[in-house]
Every structure is written in C-alpha cells, then in structure tokens.
C-alpha cells in the first residue's frame, strides 16, 4: 500500500510565547522544534500498517529547508523516504493553504492511506486532515484511537463527548491519530544509520496564499491576582465562602 505520514515541525511544548516587533507573529529565535506530538503517533501508525500489510511509507512535510533534521528522525523511525515541501513561511500558512498544498502532493504521489496527527500543537487547528480529504474527495476519520483495515476500507474508533464512535470508511482515506492509538517507537542506532541512506527530497511548496489575516497577537488576559485562602482542612470554610460570595460559582 502507498502510505503517507504527514508531519509538522512545531515549537516544543515548553516554548514560551514572546510577541515579535510586528505585533502579529511570535519571536522564533528561542524556539526549539520537534515533530508535533500527535504526528509521531501518525508516523508510528503508518510504519505499523506497512509492517502488517506491506507497502512504502513516505514522510511528507511542509517546512523550512533547514528543517530536515526532524524529518531525518522520521526516517530513522521507519519512514522509507521523505519529501520536504520547502517554505520558510510554513508557520504562517493557514489551514486551507496547507490542506490544498498537501492535497495536490498526495494526489501526485498516488497515496492510498494517509496518517496525520489529530492536531498540531502550535496552532491547534485540527483542521488540515479533514480539509485535505475534502479537497481530494476522500474519506476521513479524525481523532482515531483504534483502527483496523479491511478490503478497500476499514473501521476506526474515535472518542467523543458521548463515548466511543465506530466509523466505517472507504479507501483512499486520511486518518488523524489521537493518543492511545499506539506507542511511538524510539529511533534505534540501526534506524539512525539506515536513515542516512534513505532518500530525502526537497521540493518547492505550492504557493497558496493565505485567507486568514492575523491582525494582532497579544498575551492572554492577565488573571486577577489570586490568594492563598489558608492551609489544610481549616481553610475549607474560607474557600467555600469565596466560591459562594465572591466568585458566585456555588
């Protein structure tokens, strides 16, 4: 099967957000980067699918030309080849721009089954998977925690407010992966050595202008300064009083 894992390079989750001088973006100088947490799960699922049913795993990303270190790591964890659609403004792309660019490439690659993370941990859109599938006219199941493939399709489970939904889908499809689907592997020495010889192709990313216009970025509203109401069990009456009479949530 022709399997693709789409991954995104994002700031690490301990990154602090400092607003840049333009007032509409973030300072990136202090950022360390990683493959988005859920994309690691997507990659693992792609590799496990290949191990179970054969085929090839292509790692696809839109990112900076200099970002191949993280992509190389994906090859060390079982990807067969990687394609970087180079765009230094990758962090500024809106979800439509990203989805249309990926859709074009996935079509060109002849992908049959595509895994993405449930959400990228920088912009938290959780939109690119289902948008890309819609542009392609494919099935898509989001937030998947369990899945099996059958002839021409598969069954996936996703968690909702009400419980766990079972969704039947046809192929080709895009599956967005949630925590719990698998345990991503670490890159072993053998994998790291092998990754050096695997093809990593760099191509220009299709230019799809953004519709989203960021007019400003601000720190989150300061919370009113709180207070310690007391220590131990003795503090409970003071807490109840504050919740009742000040916060009015009881």
């Amino acid at each position, binding site marked *: 099967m022709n399997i693709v894992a789409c991954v995104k390079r994002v700031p690490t989750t301990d*990154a602090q957000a400092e607003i840049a001088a333009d007032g*509409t973006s973030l300072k990136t100088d202090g950022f360390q980067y990683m493959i988005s947490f859920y994309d690691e799960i997507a990659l693992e699922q792609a590799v496990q699918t290949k191990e179970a049913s054969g085929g090839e795993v292509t790692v696809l990303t839109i990112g900076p030309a200099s970002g191949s270190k993280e992509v190389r790591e994906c090859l060390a964890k079982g990807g067969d080849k990687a394609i970087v659609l180079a765009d230094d403004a990758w962090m500024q792309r809106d979800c439509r721009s990203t989805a249309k660019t990926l859709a074009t490439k996935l079509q060109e690659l002849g992908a049959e089954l595509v895994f993405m993370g449930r959400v990228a941990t920088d912009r938290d*859109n959780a939109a690119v998977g289902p948008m890309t599938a819609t542009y392609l*006219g494919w099935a898509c199941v989001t937030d998947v925690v369990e899945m099996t493939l059958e002839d021409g399709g598969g069954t996936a489970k996703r968690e909702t407010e*009400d419980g766990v939904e079972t969704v039947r889908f046809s192929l080709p499809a895009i599956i967005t992966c949630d925590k719990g689907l698998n345990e991503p592997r670490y890159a072993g020495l053998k994998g790291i050595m092998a990754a050096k010889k695997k093809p990593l192709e760099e191509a220009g990313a299709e230019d799809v202008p953004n*519709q989203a216009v960021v007019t400003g970025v601000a720190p989150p509203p300061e919370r009113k300064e*709180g207070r310690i109401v007391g*220590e131990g069990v003795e503090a409970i009456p003071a807490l109840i009083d504050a919740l009742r009479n000040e916060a009015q949530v009881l």
Partner: protein
Amino acid sequence: MSTIVVFVEHTEGSPRRGSLEAIGAARAAGADCVAVLSGPGADAVAATLGTNGAARAVVLAGRDAYSPDATAAACADVVKECGANGFLAASSACGRDLAPRVAAHLDCTLLTDCIELSAEGDGFAIKRPWLAGKCIAAVTTSGDVLCATTRLNVFQPAEGGGSAEVQTVTLGEGKAEVVSVDAKSSGALDVKEAPVVISGGRGLKEPEHFKLIEELAAAFGNAAVGASRAVVDAGWRPHSEQVGQTGKTVSPQLYVAIGISGAIQHLAGMRTSGTIVAINKDADAPIFKVADYGIVGDASEVVPALTEEIAKIKAQG
C-alpha cells in the same frame, strides 16, 4: 445583513449547549442565524430553535447513520443557498470534525476554537488562542465565508422569542459513516463540556487516590474529572481526561486543580477557566500563580473534607 449558518448538535431531544453558544455568538455579532441539524429527533429539536435565536432551521434527512462528509457537503449547500457569510459549529468532537470539511467545500479557511466573534466591515473578526493559550491572536479572513468553531463555555446562548421556519433537505451518501456509538457510563461528563472540572495530578501520589477526585466531582454533580499529563503518561488515567497542550483545552466556570504543580503546558490548557482553585502541598507551585483561590495542604486530607462540604451544600439545593 449578515447570515451565519450554525450546525446544531443535539442529544436526547435537546440541543447541546455548545451549539446554542455558537448561535449566541452569531446573534451577538449581529447576524441572522440559520440552524442545520441532522440525525434521529432532529425535526423536534429544529422546531424549538426559534426560542434560541434561530430564524430558520434546516433538517438534513434521509439517512440514519451520521456521515461527516455527506453532512459537510449538505451544510455547504445550505450556506450557498442562503447566501450566508458565516458558518459556525461548536468546538466539540463533532464540530471540530465537521467544520473543516464545510470550509473546504466552500474553499474557505477555518478559524478554530474562537473565543471572540465580532462584525467587521462586510464580514467578521475573531480572536483565538495560539500555542494552547500562551497568546491570543486576532484574525480576519479574506475568504467569502467566515468558517469557524467556537470554544465551549465561552459564548452565551441567545434568548430569542420567535419560531424558526423548518425545512428539510435530503442527504447524499457518505464515504465514512458512524456505525455504532459505545456510550459512556451515564452521567459521566466530558472534560471539555462540563461547567466544573476537577483535575488531579502527581501530587495524589497513587492512582487509587484519584477516587478522591471522582468523589469530589460526584459531589458537584455537574463536574468532569480531568488529569495532568504526568498521570496520563503514567497510565493512571485515560488520555480523554488530559488537560493541557497535548490534551484538551478547557474553559469551565470552575476549575479545581489538585496535586497539580502547573507546568506551562498544563496552564495553557486551563487558564481561561472562570474561577481556578488550586490545592497543593507546595506553596511555591506555579499553579498558585494562576489560581484565584489556593489551599496549601495535603490532598488526601483536604479533598475528602471539601467533598463533604460540597455535598452538604448541594443537598440543600
């Protein structure tokens, strides 16, 4: 005049609060609201939506099983048919899955998890968190239709007096379909939806001590149980309960953090909550910097006593 189409989820014969909040957001931004509903019981719910601010309701009929792709195509058709300049859904599991597909059908971008929506020129402007709330971005779109999801528990439902005109359209076939739902044990609330969230962290020391969290949540009656990343990674709690940057972002009216030190990625996921209470042994824990009220103390002593007090208050009504 602006028109916003809102996808309305419903359960057990009532619209979900998150969907009513989305209608409220549309109304507050000065737009007329057209509701779209699907699934068994949609007709009855549609007829009531006039009192929640909808001028019209469109029921997608003809298929029993929910298909996100077929539903999205039908929603996009409704947007086109009524010349709407907005589409909203709640930022729920269903809304987050549906809205991107509707946006793609309209070839418009999607602005997710909005915390503000206002009219601007012929369109709209929104605010939304970045990096799970470490900063807030103000965004507009040059697309023809503003497609967005609204964060739960942020917007107020609208009060409307009128009755909605109900109309039915037929759904097409989908490429993916929900074949069954394994319902949660009754009464268990989702961490994103619940008005009160009681979260536990490593300070509870042992997974068994999460019983204290569950008991406090039960005493509130309208509370969900949440967890820090540390205890989810340790396998104490399911990922569906994780609050933070790699879990869920929540904004309940009341958030109680117990034995959670307050790593930046956790704070990002809960700092927009209405009122925050922290109970922690370490007086220097970062969680106290965002908490409105803190108790320095051992969870195993403080929580059972607090549960008892809350139970008393709730019993009095």
